[in-house]
Each structure stands twice: as structure tokens, then as C-alpha cells.
């Protein structure tokens, strides 16, 4: 089974081609360059390298966010259109979950996060179950103030491995609040691998190609303002 996996949800761009659980090829860049320009050429290049044609693909896997709204949509649009036109299944995997895979060799709780500006982060808490080799979610994914989130983590009493391409922005506050409970791994594993997307997809049901939507974890600003104004009108009326 040939699988194409793609991740453009954050700064790094990742493409992997798998034959079942075997990695045939993987391409990762971590530079602030345009995903829209580079994704399709990257897929094309890697497919040629491993000598696979589009009609041989049997599954598409995509990182569905959270992350950059635009980046997530570029990945999802490409993945959905490929899956629809090739008439093959698609699986969307949370960008946080795939990043958590980078910590699967430890017994610590795993906290992947992405900076969401103004002190906010997109995050969740995971743990690798070593007996059945599955990623398990300990706390639901959320968009909240890092400080508040760290308070929740402190209460777990667990040792926590942090994983994030945006570590530098939050390292201090993490150490401040959690101190001894924290492990920071080296930088090379702070970026998700697209081959792990494919692995994560094996344990999941396929999504509906039309129904798969980005995992924004946040309403559009105009939408939340509008909802707020509706609420106020209701309260005043």
C-alpha cells in the first residue's frame, strides 16, 4: 500500500511516501518559505525519486492543524483534491498528535504545542502506550494561555516532555511554573516527521473526503466577535 503523507500546517514542510509502514522517502524543510509554491513540486520530486506515479497511490494522509490557518488549508486542499480525484481514502491527523510522536520512546507525558500569539498556544497532552504501541490523548487539544495550561499540567504531577518548534518563546515560563517536571529534547526532534503522519493514520478510520475540515481549534476572529455581539444583544434584550 503506497501512502502519501503531507504536512504544511506550520513552518516546516514535510512530505513522505510509504510502502505500508516502510518509509520509501521523506522530505522535510524548515524554512519560512511559501508552502503553496513548494508543496506540489516537493510531492512531484519525491514521487519521481521513489519511482511512484500518482495512480499507484492508495491513501493520502494530511496534517490537519492546528497551526497556520493558510498552511493548514494548503495541505488540506491539496490532500482532499488528490484523494477525491484518485478516488482513494484520506486520513487527517492532528498536527499536535504527529508532533507528539517525536517523544514516543519515553515514558513521560508528551506536550506538543504551537505558539498562537499573545501568550496563547495550541496544545494538548499525550502519552505513548508502550504495551499496544498507540498514541493516547491524556488531555483534549485546546487553544489557551500558556500560563493557564501549565497550571493544568502542574496538577498532573507527571514528568512532561515538551515538543515544539516554538520552544524559545515559551521556555522560560515553562521552567518557571513546572521546574523539575520538565524535559526539553534537542532541537532536531522539535519538528514533526511526515512519516509519523502515515504511521498515525494506520490506527485511524478514514475521513470523509468532502467532510474533512481543518482542526483550527479557534473560531475566525469575525465569527467570535459576531457571536459575542449576538450574546450581548440577547442579554440586553
Amino acid at each position, binding site marked *: 500500500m503506497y501512502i502519501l503523507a503531507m504536512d504544511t500546517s506550520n513552518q516546516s514542510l514535510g512530505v513522505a511516501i510509504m510502502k505500508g509502514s516502510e518509509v520509501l522517502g521523506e522530505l522535510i524543510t524548515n524554512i519560512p518559505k*511559501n508552502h*503553496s*509554491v*513548494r*508543496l*506540489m*513540486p516537493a*510531492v*512531484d520530486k519525491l514521487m519521481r525519486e521513489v519511482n511512484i506515479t*500518482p495512480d499507484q497511490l492508495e491513501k493520502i494522509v494530511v496534517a490537519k492543524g492546528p497551526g497556520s*490557518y*493558510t498552511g493548514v*488549508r*494548503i495541505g*488540506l*486542499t*491539496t*490532500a*482532499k*483534491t*488528490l484523494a*477525491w*480525484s*484518485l478516488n482513494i481514502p484520506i486520513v487527517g491527523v492532528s498536527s499536535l498528535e504527529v508532533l507528539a510522536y517525536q517523544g514516543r520512546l519515553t515514558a513521560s507525558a508528551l506536550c506538543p504545542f504551537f505558539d498562537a500569539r499573545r501568550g496563547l498556544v495550541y496544545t494538548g497532552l499525550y502519552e505513548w502506550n508502550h504495551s499496544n504501541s498507540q498514541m493516547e490523548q491524556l488531555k483534549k487539544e485546546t487553544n489557551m494561555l500558556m500560563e493557564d495550561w501549565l497550571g493544568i499540567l502542574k496538577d498532573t504531577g507527571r514528568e512532561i516532555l515538551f515538543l515544539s518548534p516554538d520552544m524559545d518563546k515559551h521556555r522560560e515560563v515553562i521552567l518557571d511554573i513546572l521546574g523539575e517536571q520538565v524535559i526539553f529534547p534537542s532541537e532536531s526532534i522539535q519538528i514533526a516527521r511526515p512519516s509519523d503522519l502515515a504511521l498515525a493514520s494506520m490506527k485511524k478510520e478514514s475521513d470523509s*473526503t*468532502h467532510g474533512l*475540515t*481543518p482542526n*483550527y481549534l479557534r473560531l*475566525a*476572529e*469575525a*465569527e467570535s466577535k*459576531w457571536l459575542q455581539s449576538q450574546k450581548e444583544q440577547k442579554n440586553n434584550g
Partner: protein
Amino acid sequence: MGEFSMTKETYILGIETSCDETAVAIVKNGSEIVTNVVASQIESHKRFGGVVPEIASRHHVEQITMVLEEAFELSKLSWDDIDAIAVTEGPGLVGALLIGVNAAKALAFAKQKPLIGVHHIAGHIYANRLEQEFQFPLLALIVSGGHTELVLMKEHGHYEVIGETRDDAAGEAYDKVARMLHLPYPGGPHIDRLAAEGNVTIDFPRAWLEEGSFDFSFSGLKSSVINTIHNAKQRGEVLEDKDIAASFQSSVVDVLTTKTVKAALNHNVKQVIVAGGVAANKGLRNELVNKFADLDIPLVIPPLKLCTDNAAMIAAAGTISYHQGKRSGLDLNANPSLILK
């Protein structure tokens, strides 16, 4: 197009997502609509009083494969029949454009078809070829929420912008005046309706610009409408909304039609075509018909559903590029400020 003698039919799949319509169409030989599916988001944007770019992008990604499927299934064609994929690469809202561009690239890659980036305005012009064959040289007046342009075409696929707005697009001015009159979004059709009921009682300015210029400017008119309403209020006078609408519309229509006539005569064109959402405006249509009836220059205005954004127009314009050998690479990007040439 004689040199491309049609031994085989050409089918181009078009995709358009530059603003708030998710659209896919298939067009045969550049002039015949096979399918033309448009999913409008207007209901969703109404509550915000205008198109919110982030909301538009969110809807596009949710809709795109469904619209593709509907257009494809209705066409009864197979992928073997499709010669190329054409997509709006700009101008427009960048986040919205990106959905169409990336969907088009994925299709081109999956089905190994040529990819063709199309300028949105070229699409609006070519909407007319779905109705009637072009006669060159032709002059196109494009009026929409984002554009007010006069384009001269001497042959297929060759565009010369001879006039454009220096500030607001005509459609933008309509939307702003509509908001002042507390009309719902989109305001253009409401002003058109009110204008038909009212009388031209206020002499709003007309921006003719320098002698011989085919450019437009609507910001002065917009300010004048604001000031007039404001001053009347202060003096306790009552201005009828329908008269404001009629007076405003008469200024816009006067400038648009007068400049179009001058440009048409100046360049000896054989045909004048009107394109873009504001081409649906009855006041504008009537005045253009009146003025060109005397001049013996054929005027083409497409039906309403082809005036507003759709993908058949992109496929129609893309057909010309396809025959002229123009191709885009898989690195095609959305370009929100793409220039027509």
C-alpha cells in the same frame, strides 16, 4: 483561431475561488458550457456586512471537492476527455485564491493534465464568448466590486488596459453608498432598484480626469454623497433615499458610459462587451444600450449568471491560453495583485 482547426473537441475544467464563490465548470471549445457550478457564500457573509477573507477561505476549503464532484458528475465526462485544468491565479483575496490554485495543482498532478493560470478579469471578458464570438478589435468594460477597467483586445489572449480606476472600484462606491442608506449587503442591486423609483435631484460630481484619459475615479463622488447626506441632516432637510440613489447612479453611469463610448470610437472597435458583477445593473445596461444603438457598434452584455463570478469564464479564457501553448508549473502561486497582460 483557424490555425487550431478543431479536429478534436477541447474540454477545459475551470476553477474560480477569488472571492466568495466556490466555482467549478467545464467548457467545450472555449464557447460552450458543459457544466457550471457555483456555491455562493453570500448568506454567510451577510451578517458581517461584507466578505470576511478568513471566513471565505474557510468556506472554500469545505466546499471545493464537493463542487468539483458536482461539476464533474453533471458533465458525464471522464478524465480522459479533459484537456487541461484552468484556475484563477489572481487578482483577488489571497487566502481564497490559494484554495482554487492548490486544488487545481493537485488535479493537474493526479491526472497528469496541463495546468493554466488565468487572470480573473480575462475570465470576466471571456464570459461573453460563451454567448457570442468575439470581433476584434474589441473593447471590454469591466465593472465589479473590485474592478473598473477598460480593456482593448486586438486578438485572442491579448489584453491592453487603456483605463482603470485610480481609487475605488465602481462596485465599492455602490457598497459604500448602500451602507450610508442602510441598505443590506450587497448594496448594488438595492441602489439600482431604488434609483429606478427616484429622480435625479442632486447634481453629484463626475470625475472626467484629464482630457483624453480613460481612467476612472469614484472617491470624490463617494465623499460628495456622504457630505450631501450629512449637510442635509444638519439643516433638517429630508432627502429621499431613492433620489440619492438615482442621483448617485446617474453620476456613475454617466461617467462609465461616456468613457466607454469615447474609447470605442477612439480605437475603432468592432464590438463592445461588458463584464463583471455591476454589468447586472439595469441603469448601466439601459444607458449603454441607448448610447451604442446610435453608433452602430455591437454591444454584448452577458446574462446575469455569467456577469458574476463563475468558473465557466475561467475555463473559457483558459481555453485560449491552452491553444496558445501557455502553461503553468506546479509551483503556480496565488497572486492577489496579478496584472492583466
